[in-house]
């Protein structure tokens, strides 16, 4: 049934029920997880 081969390009354009941007604050960092490109994508920022 599944003859689909995944590639990086295939992910772009898939839309799912999006989670809101998830932000987690620690003492030193801000973690942001987005699902804009259908897969989770985390960025880490050091607090000033």
């Amino acid at each position, binding site marked *: 049934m599944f003859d689909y081969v*995944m590639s*990086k390009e295939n992910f772009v354009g898939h839309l799912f029920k999006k*989670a809101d941007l*998830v932000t987690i604050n*620690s003492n030193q960092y801000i973690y942001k*997880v987005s699902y804009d490109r259908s*897969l*989770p994508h985390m960025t880490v920022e050091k607090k000033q």
Partner: protein
Amino acid sequence: MAKSHELNIPAHYNIYNGSNSRNLNIYFSEPENGVNSETGILLLIPGFGGNSQSNVYKKMRSLFADQHNLIVVQCDYFGSEFMQSTNRFNFDFEKYKALFSANLGIKLKNDASAEKLLEELAKYECVVNATEILDESVDNFNDMGFMQALDLLTAVYAVKAVLSDNQLVYNENKIIAYGHSHGAYLSLLCNRIAPNEFTLIIDNSAWIKPVYLESARCLWQKYGKMTMQIEFDYFAQRYHYDKEILDLSVLYKNFDNQAKITAFHGIDDNLVSYSLKREFYKGIKNTEFNLVDEGMVDNKLFFSSSHGLNADF
């Protein structure tokens, strides 16, 4: 019988050094009767000593797909290869060679190898300390944290993409994660960074914060009469990154939990205190904490009241 599939896709970039060269192996099974609007998704998350190729997990992927109408998903998450049993270790050859001859009066040949010494020691009741050789680096290590959770979430989303591309409708309100020990911890970490994703989390013996971030993991392995005590000193202990945030009591503080969380924890768990765990869940809505005591051990559902409940399927 359920059908098994494998995918290999580009993985999430490494949040510690920015590199973008990893791939992720994903395994999933679909029910023999195919996918329908009632089919849910189950993410299985092994802890230390288990992996996607363990017989028990292969069996679970296959059985659960058919028995419970689920797409059962697993992946080889970041650093999981360092969480298995011993592969290669170092030990103090000269020390044990000297002890061997001093205590037993047997002299090994000067050119005796480490293998030969261990072979001799295995004839005696003794303990030999060793250190596992872990080829970890910032590129790939057992981070016990966000990278592992991101890989697990990627696996779920990738399988959803496959279903979508095959125009298959499934039950989006039946997305389950089951984790064992550290795997259960990761299921809770996934739920925290994807708060709208899971409808049910089954926690079997999660810890609140990975103990091996701060202390070595010890494995005891019998060779003949000898016991090897093998220490795993993880790179995560030495590498400077944000570990405070990996405490679930910090992460779940003021978190508006949406998933139903059902937790099982053994009363005799000596790795993770059940009272701390029970306390942790008190402040989180939609949770159910089940303490498993000796009286509940029926060798059907529960096989012990210790860490991991000796879960088997």
